[in-house]
C-alpha cells in the first residue's frame, strides 16, 4: 500500500511538473507565479494576479487554460459591466408552438476556468457577482441556483489600485482568493527571451497535459497529506499574528493593520503547505512549507489601517515581520 502512495506522490509531481513546463513554453520567467497559480488550481482556490498592464497576466491565464483540458471563458471587466453579464439572465423566448418561454441564458461564469480580466475596473456591485460562484461554486439567478461544473477556477487580474479607473475589491471578495500573486517586471534576460518568442512568425504552442478528472484526483491527493498538530498550530499562530491587538498579534500588525486574516488564510496556509510538501517529495507538512506560501496566502487578507496606508506599508513587510517573530513551537 505504501508503494501506491509513493506512486501517487510521484504521479502528482510529474503532472504538476508537466503543466508547469507547458506553461513555461509560453510564459518566460515567473516560475513562482506559475507554480502558485497551479497550486491554487489544485487547492480548489482562486488566484488574483496583480500587476501593471502588459506583463503577461492574461497570457498566463489563457495559457493555463490551454494546458488543461477544461472549458475556458474570459470576462473583461469594465465600469459598465453588470452582474447579469457575468452570471447570465432569464430571457423570454418563443417556443415552437409560439408560446413564451422564460429561459436562463448562462453567463461566462459557467466555465471551468474563468478569467476575470482587470476585475477591479468594474464596480463593486459587479465584482460581488463573483462571490457566490467563487465560494459555493453555485450561481443563483432569480429563485434558481445553478451548480457550476467542477473544477471551477477563477483567475482574476487587476491593475494596481493607484491606477486610474480602478475600484478596490471588497474585503469579502479578496478573502475568497486563495492567493494573491504580484507580477513584477521581467528581468532583462527574460525580456530577451520574451522578444524572441513573441516577435517571430511562429509562436510557441502548448499541448493539453491535464484534464478535469485528473485535476480532481490531484485535489484529493493534496487533501490526503497529513499534517501534524504542531505544524498546524504554527500556521494558526501566523494567522493570528496578523490580527491587531490580540495576544498573538505581531507588533507591525498591531500598528499598521486594520484587520487580519480570516480562517480562510489559515486554510490556505495548510493546503498550500500540503501541495508544497508533495512537490518536495514529502508526505508531511513542515514549517518551511507554511512559510513558503504565507506571502501569497496572507498578503491580500491583511488590511491596512490609515497609518499603514499613509506610510505606504506593504503587507509583505508585515508578513515578513510575522514570520520572523513567530516561534515554530511554544
Amino acid at each position, binding site marked *: *500500500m505504501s508503494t*501506491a502512495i509513493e506512486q501517487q506522490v510521484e504521479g502528482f509531481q510529474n503532472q504538476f511538473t508537466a503543466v508547469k513546463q507547458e506553461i513555461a513554453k509560453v510564459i518566460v520567467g515567473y516560475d513562482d507565479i506559475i507554480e502558485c497559480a497551479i497550486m491554487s488550481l489544485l487547492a480548489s482556490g482562486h488566484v488574483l494576479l496583480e500587476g501593471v498592464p502588459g506583463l503577461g497576466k492574461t497570457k498566463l491565464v489563457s495559457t493555463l487554460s490551454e494546458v488543461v483540458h477544461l472549458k475556458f471563458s474570459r470576462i473583461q471587466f469594465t465600469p459598465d459591466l453588470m452582474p447579469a453579464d457575468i452570471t447570465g439572465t432569464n430571457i423570454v423566448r418563443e417556443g415552437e408552438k409560439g408560446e413564451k418561454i422564460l429561459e436562463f441564458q448562462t453567463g461566462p461564469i459557467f466555465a471551468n476556468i474563468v478569467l476575470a480580466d482587470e476585475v477591479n475596473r468594474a464596480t463593486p456591485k459587479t465584482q460581488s457577482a463573483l462571490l457566490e460562484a467563487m465560494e459555493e461554486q453555485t450561481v443563483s439567478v432569480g429563485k434558481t441556483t445553478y451548480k457550476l461544473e467542477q473544477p471551477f477556477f477563477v483567475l482574476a487580474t487587476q491593475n494596481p489600485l493607484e491606477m486610474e479607473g480602478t475600484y478596490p475589491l471588497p474585503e469579502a471578495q479578496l478573502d475568497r482568493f486563495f492567493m494573491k500573486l504580484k507580477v513584477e517586471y521581467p528581468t532583462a534576460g527574460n525580456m530577451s527571451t520574451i522578444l524572441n518568442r513573441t516577435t517571430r512568425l511562429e509562436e510557441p504552442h502548448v499541448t493539453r497535459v491535464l484534464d478535469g478528472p485528473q485535476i480532481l484526483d490531484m485535489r484529493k491527493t493534496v487533501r490526503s497529506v497529513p499534517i501534524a*498538530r504542531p505544524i498546524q498550530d504554527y500556521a494558526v499562530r501566523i494567522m493570528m499574528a496578523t490580527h491587531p491587538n490580540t495576544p498573538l498579534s505581531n507588533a507591525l500588525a498591531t500598528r499598521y493593520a486594520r484587520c487580519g486574516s480570516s480562517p480562510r488564510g489559515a486554510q490556505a496556509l495548510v493546503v498550500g503547505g500540503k501541495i508544497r510538501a508533495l512537490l518536495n517529495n514529502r508526505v508531511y507538512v513542515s514549517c518551511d512549507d507554511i512559510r513558503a506560501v504565507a506571502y501569497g496566502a496572507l498578503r491580500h487578507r491583511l488590511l491596512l489601517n490609515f497609518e499603514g496606508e499613509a506610510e505606504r506599508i506593504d503587507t509583505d513587510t508585515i508578513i515578513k515581520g510575522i514570520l520572523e517573530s513567530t516561534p515554530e*513551537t511554544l
Partner: protein
Amino acid sequence: MVGSLPNRSKRKNRGAMADKDFIIGLLERVRRRVRSEQRFKVIYAILSGALIFPVLLKLIDLFSPIKGLAVVVLLGIWAVATTVWLIRRTRIQVSLDQAAENLDRLAHLQDQMKTAWWFIDHPQSSEWVDVHLQRTVRSAGTLKVETLYPGSIPKTFHRAFALMAVFVILNFLPLSENHNWFFLQGAPPFQLSRTDQALADRAKKLLEKSDAAKELEKIIGDLEHGKISSDAAQQQISDLRQQIDGGNLELSNILDGLASIANQLEHSSALAPAAEAMSAGNAAEAAEEIRSVGENLGVTPEDVLREMQKSMSQAAVNSPASLQELSKRMQETSDSLKNNDPEAGKVALDKLAESLDKLAQRMKDQQQQSQASKQLADLQNSLHQEAAAGEESAEAQQSPSPAEGAGKESGAPSPNSNPSAGTPSGNGQGSKSSSGSNTSGSGLPAELSLGDTTKLDVQLKMEGLKGQAGKGGQPQDFEEASKQERSAMDYRNVPSQLNPAQKDALNQNRLPREQREIVKYYFEEIRPRSAGGPIKQ
C-alpha cells in the same frame, strides 16, 4: 488466500511498531545527549558567573584583609546559593518533542522527526502516516547521533576555568597580608598594627622569664581571636602593668638604699669608688670595687682600715630594710675589720661583693620589667587611640581639649592608663610616651621611643566680615495676577479701605473717567504713612 490477509496485516503492524520503536530509540538517545549537553552548558555558565564573587572577594581581601569568620560566612552563603542555583537549573527535562525538534534542526530534516514523533504520540490510522514513518526510519538510519552531538566543550567552560585559576593564584600569592582560603586561613578578628605588634613582641621578650609574658601572650591571642574586645584587652594590659609595676617600687627602694649606703661609704677613701658606683645605681661595678678592696686588704694602712670599719658599720646600721642582706654583710665586714682579722675581712668583703652581684641581677630584672611595663603602656595607649580613631569626628580633631589647648604638647595620659604607672615625661618634645612610664629613678633610656599621634592645635577665631556697599539691584515691579486678568470677584464686593467721603469723590459721575486715577493717587499720597489705614478727616 483468506488467511493471508490477517498475516499481512500482522506483518504490517509489526513493521509499523518496529518503525516507531526505532524512532523512539533514536529520540531517546538524542534526548540524553541534549540533556547532558544542556547540563554542561548550564553548569559552566553558572560557574562562570558565580566564580566572579569569590575572585572579587579575594581581590578585596588582598587590599583590605577580611576576617576569617566573615570569609567563612560569605563563602558559605555563596556556596549554598551556587549549589541551589546549580541544582535548580540542572534539573533539565528534555521531552521527546524537544529532542525531535533539536534533531530536525541539526540534521536539516525539515520537521520530519517532529511530525513523525507527533504521529507516534498521536496514532492515526493513515497509510500516509505509515509512509511518513517508514521514510523517517530511512532518514534516521543515515544519522549518526555521536557526530551530530559531539559533546564539545561549552564556551563558558573557558571562562569558568580562568576564574578558578585566578582564584587559586590569588590565594597562593606570596604576600605577607595574603591569607590562603584553601588552608582555611583568614585575617584574625582583630589584627594588631605593626607598631603594636612590635611593642607586644618587645614586651614579651623583656618578660620572657616571668609569667607575665605568658599572660601577655594570652591577652594578645584572645584579642586577635575575637575572644575579648579591645577595651577588655586594654583593661587586662593595664592590670598586667600594675602587676609588673609592683616590683618597680622595690627597685626604687633599692636605689634609695644604695644611695644611702653610698653616703656612708664615701667617708672611707678605700670604699669611695664603690660608693660612687652605688650612688650611680651600678651594683655590679660596686661589687667589683669591693672585691678590689678585699684583695688589697692586706696592704691597706691601719687608719684606712679603721675608716673602712667605721663607714661599714654606719652603713650597716643606716641601710634600709630592703637591703638587709647587704647590711648583714657590711656588719660582718665591719666586725672582721674591727677584730684586725684581714682574712676574715677579705672573706666578708667577697660575700658583700656577691650580695651586690645578686642585687645587681635583681635590679636588672626589675629594670627589664619596667621597660616591659613601658612597652605595655604604649601598646595600651595605641589600642585606645585606634579604637577612638573611628569615633573621633573631624570637629573633635579641630577643636582641641582644654588641656591640649593650654600648650601641653604631649604626655597627656590616656583616659584608662594607670595613674600609678608614673608621671608623663612632659619634656615638651612631644615624642615621649604619654603612658607615664616610670622612668624617674631608674634613669634608663627607653629603647623604643614612640610618641603620641601628633595633633594640630587649631584655634578658630571669629572674624567679622565687613560688607561692601554697592549699587545693588534695581527695584523691579512684578505684575500682579489682578493686573493680568480680570478679577472674578465683583468689584462691589471688594472691601474698600476708603472712607465714605473718598468713595463719594470717586463715584461722582462728573468726575471725568481719565482723572479718577489722579484723584485716587492724590488720596493715597495724603494717607498717613504710619497709620496705614484710611484717612481720617
